[in-house]
């Protein structure tokens, strides 16, 4: 069983069968990270370029560790600004990288659609590690993996995503990914943070956090970016935390088996109380652990793998 396309661009372009394949493969990969010698030879001789146009610690480290555990040669390139500023277009940069024959390019970029542009240009497989406000498919896959691990299923679950939906690629990908796998998704934020036509993606909308929490099996809190104040998205951090933050009092209204997620980095005390982030319902660090497994699975599958890596 293989993936149909060479690239992992967004959750729309993955079928449910492919998502199941990725999650199953990731479950197998997870065990490798628990061994004393955390390395298998599966991708020996493959080159993985981690091309990050936006700062990232977690995602880049996760991909880097994933590549190294599969014995691929990985290298990181950072760029603070678009290469256009330096006088070279992105396409030219891509063509230069391509000339060095990499097998996989992992790209993060502040502009939506850059992975699509590179995927069209390059023979290497392109994995989207986050593009603008558009998509973050590897985050969604690790979210799916973590929820499935804890609940045994995705089908029929209720996911609430609370925070700045308008600017969140995680929210977009999670809406598409979780609804595709049979969950119901509700988004919650002040109207300034709900983008036009979000229901067309399959989410229902509420502006009251109590409604979002009520009956949710999984609650995903999103980071509130303080600079959005300047764009008039909210009044004050204090008021945001009061009306849209997840605190202990609110959590008491949630289901007894609720799971709390956060894609990080967190603003403790703003969108999420520390007691909750560190509490028994939190699966925030499981997300990080599974991130490595999911990225190992994706690197393996886009490199053309047909067997489970741990049989190698």
């Amino acid at each position, binding site marked *: 069983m293989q993936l149909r396309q060479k690239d992992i661009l967004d959750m729309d372009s993955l079928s449910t069968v492919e998502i199941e394949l990725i999650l199953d493969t990731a479950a197998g990969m997870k065990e490798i990270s628990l061994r004393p010698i955390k390395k298998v030879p599966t991708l020996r001789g493959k080159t993985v370029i981690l091309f990050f146009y936006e700062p990232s610690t977690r995602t880049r480290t996760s991909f880097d560790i994933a590549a190294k555990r599969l014995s691929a040669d990985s290298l990181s390139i950072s760029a603070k600004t678009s290469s256009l500023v330096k006088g070279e277009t992105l396409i030219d940069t891509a063509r230069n990288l391509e000339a060095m024959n990499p097998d996989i390019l992992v790209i993060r970029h502040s502009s939506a659609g850059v992975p699509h542009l590179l995927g069209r240009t390059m023979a290497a497989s392109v994995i989207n590690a986050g593009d603008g406000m558009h998509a973050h498919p590897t985050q969604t896959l690790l979210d799916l993996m973590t929820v499935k691990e804890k609940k045994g299923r995705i089908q029929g679950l209720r996911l609430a995503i609370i925070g700045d939906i308008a600017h969140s690629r995680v929210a977009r990908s999670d809406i598409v990914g979780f609804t595709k796998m049979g969950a119901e998704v509700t988004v919650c934020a002040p109207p300034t943070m709900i983008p036009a036509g*979000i229901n067309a993606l399959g989410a229902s909308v509420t502006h009251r956090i109590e409604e979002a929490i009520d009956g949710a099996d999984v609650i995903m809190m999103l980071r509130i970016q303080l600079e959005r104040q300047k764009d008039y998205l909210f009044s004050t951090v204090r008021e945001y935390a009061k009306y849209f933050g997840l605190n202990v009092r609110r959590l008491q209204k949630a289901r007894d088996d609720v799971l709390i997620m956060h894609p990080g980095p967190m603003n403790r005390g703003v969108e999420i109380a520390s007691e909750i982030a560190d509490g028994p319902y939190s699966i925030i660090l499981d997300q990080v652990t599974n991130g490595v497994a999911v990225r190992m699975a994706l690197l393996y599958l886009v490199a053309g793998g047909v067997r489970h890596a741990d049989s190698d």
Partner: protein
Amino acid sequence: MRILIKGGKIVDPAVSEAEADLLVVDGVIREIRPVGAGGEQAACDRVIDAAGKLVMPGLIDMHVHLREPGFEYKETIESGCAAAAAGGFTAVCCMPNTDPVNDCPELTEFILKKAQAAGTARVHPVAAISRLSEGKRLCEYGELKAAGVVAVSDDGRPVESGRLMRRAMEYASGFGLPVISHCEELSLAGDGVMNEGAYATKMGLPGIPNTAESVMVLRDIALSELTGCPLHIAHVSTKESVAAIREAKKRGVPVTAETAPHYFTLTEEAVGQYDTHAKMNPPLRSAGDLEAIVEGLADGTIDVIATDHAPHAPVEKEVEFDHAPNGIIGLETSVGLTLRLVRKGVLTLGQMVEKMSLNPARILGLTRGVSEGLPADLTLIDPEQEWTVEAAAFRSLSRNTPFIGWTLPGKAVLTMVGGRIIHG
């Protein structure tokens, strides 16, 4: 020089739509007569068989970016005029956002000199409303008009100050110049790069709401009413703008409006997987907007079809969607795309001629028509000659259009300016 155009069907609402022979002598339409009458073919220097063709008053594209001076790698006055001629246009109005900006008589004269040297389509420059289009000081409209300018516009940049727009309209009306407004409220457009809505949300692209356009349309209509200055709204893209213009016309406000072929042909879904050839300003809108634009064309609310021909080099468009410049070329596909509306029964051929020739002429104070004694600025169209849009065939220096590969129902087969054949 005597040219006989034989047996074409004349499309000019002022004339009956009959087939006729047209005799052009020394650049002027000398005689329109029944087919075959007259019989002194031998005395003509050239006989053009126009059987099955439409003979239209020379088409005018009143919204074109010729890019010279400053951006000659995108387009030159010569290449742009060649593209115009190939697309059936006898005249174009070039917008002032060149480098330097056309805000003085010297630059207007430079453009006209270059156009004359090119010797194809006529060029009628539009000058800036404000110096450098910076929205601070008025340009010298009197001097500019004397140099050959037909209108003023800060196209590409809205006039943010209501006070400046008011004064520009008052001052321009004194010199008999219409004001063309690029209607955009910048703080509402924000960092948007496509139409706001479900598609932009799905693609993760910041959106531009319809309101960013219509709120400025409403302001400028109010200023036109206040000042009495003829106002022409450029590139209308939203249903709210169409409604506002329709209502203003009913009240007798001297407002006219144009839209571009892409707004009556494509919707936001043309953005597809981040196709920068579907990025323009204003953006491609929703299906509901497209419907309102088509209705506005049919009922006369929208007076003009103009292309907003905006050449860009491939290297500029082959970039991140949000970094790509706005606009597409349009001169060579406009007739074909408009004929699609005719074929669908939305527009009559007479309306097509009004929107692509007679109305622009009226708004800009030019003369057009198929009548005896008028200059022989004519466009011959074969409404049945299907063709496929190919990048390699463009006369424009640029290739940025989403219509490559489209099959269009007809095309201009001959373009004549003052009795000279510049295409065909």
